[in-house]
């Protein structure tokens, strides 16, 4: 019984904590609505579409294909990304490059973002630094699955 009473006190203390948070935050919200600027804010969250958090430099965002100086993709179609990809979402097809120093270039380079798990293995596997995941684009949702299949032109942008 006495123990239960002890619990009871703790229970009240608990709800006082939440109530305090509510009251304090509510106070700052009201101040904001009234147009009074305060140092502290009612919420610590970031209001996503309007405010955006800066991505860490190592963040893995949408892929891009790097190009050489002449605008051709750096990719030499070694297919190491295809090999290492755990979700089997990359499809590459080779074509002969007129430059004998390069030999191969991709005639098709397709990433199926429906399947991609953004593990970044392809970036690590690439010997030519041709694929990177540093575009900072994270809003890639589409209404149509087809729109998530990125080909070379889309990836080069």
């Amino acid at each position, binding site marked *: 019984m006495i123990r*239960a009473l002890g619990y009871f006190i703790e229970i009240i203390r*608990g709800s006082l904590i939440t109530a305090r948070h509510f009251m304090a935050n509510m106070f700052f919200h009201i101040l904001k609505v009234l147009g009074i600027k305060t140092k502290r804010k009612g919420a610590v969250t970031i209001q996503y579409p309007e405010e955006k958090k800066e991505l860490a430099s190592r963040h893995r965002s949408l892929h891009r294909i790097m190009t050489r100086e002449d605008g051709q993709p750096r990719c030499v179609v070694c297919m190491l990304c295809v090999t290492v990809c755990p979700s089997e979402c990359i499809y590459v097809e080779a074509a002969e490059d007129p430059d004998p120093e390069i030999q191969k270039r991709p005639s098709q380079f397709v990433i199926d973002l429906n399947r991609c798990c953004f593990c970044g293995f392809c970036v690590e596997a690439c010997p030519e630094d041709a694929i990177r995941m540093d575009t900072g684009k994270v809003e890639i949702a589409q209404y149509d699955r087809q729109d998530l299949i990125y080909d070379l032109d889309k990836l080069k942008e």
Partner: protein
Amino acid sequence: MIEFLIPLIKVILALVWLLLLTLYVADWVERKESAIIHDRIGANRASIFGLRMIGLFQPFADAIKMIFKEDFTPSFSRKFLHSLAPFLSFFFVAVTIAAIPFGDTIRIGSRIIKLQVLDINVTLLFVLAMMSLGIYGVILAGWASNNRFSLLGGIRGAAQLISYEVAFGLSLVGLIMIYPSLKLSSIVHSQGELLFGFIPKWGIFLQPLGFIVFLFAALAETKRVPFDLPEGESEIIGFYTEYSGLKWGLFMMTDGMEIVIVSTLMTTLFFGGWQVPWLQADGFHWPWGGEWFLASWIVVILQVLAFNLKVFFFCWFQVLLRWTYPRFRYDQLMDLGWKLLIPLSLVNIVGTGIIMSL
């Protein structure tokens, strides 16, 4: 004709009030309050023509979404009972609003209209009875889903509700002894009197222990955290797992509605219902002397406002509790009900009897 229309209008108004409040409490208050407790902002995106109104449209968005969601009935479930269950629980909670007095009376022309849909002699018993019947919805939902986890959830729910029903009822006995009536309107009227000439004769002051027992029991009746063992959506599987769309929405509405009903009951029984301290039919009569006369329609509005304010406060309070406490373990739940609340309520009855007989 008009005798028929007035109750109809009262029913409609009461229902609209209940539904709107439920919608807002169950959705908007719940979301916003939890967000503010969490140092967040909460749902604020639903908009009409770009007008956001701090998320006030969110309940409607949710409701519309709920209506258009796929209504999935599992195969091998008992289709009829499966559909019946949410309606049962919804109905028995919704119907209790009929017994709640929103205010005293208003006079329109020569007609005196009570601000209460159903003013019978045993409104309190009616409320208790209807709330007890809500169990059927839970059990039926669990059983008709043909899912053993749902069934277990339903059984847990039934056991919990029945256990707390006892404490719930017993906690009110002291109150009935003090305000010797089962009529809610007269209980409220009695609370308009003053104790020692200045304290409003509210239930909370006369029955503090009864109130505490009632509070816990009522919270348990609403099946919400920390008493949400029937559902336990975050971990354990509960009685409406197999529900979706509008039917699931009805269960959610029932939950929300129970908050409102419990709040109205608390207000009515322990916090003077529509009574405003020191406000009488002709105006304020301050205990330190002096009077402030008001027109009767202003008094009625004040009373209705006071009632709403109290109800809203208790809704807020319940949501606060829900976002504060973790869930009970089932044995703790049962211990609390049977070993603490029921003995306490009995003590309360005996104590009340002793004090009254003095």
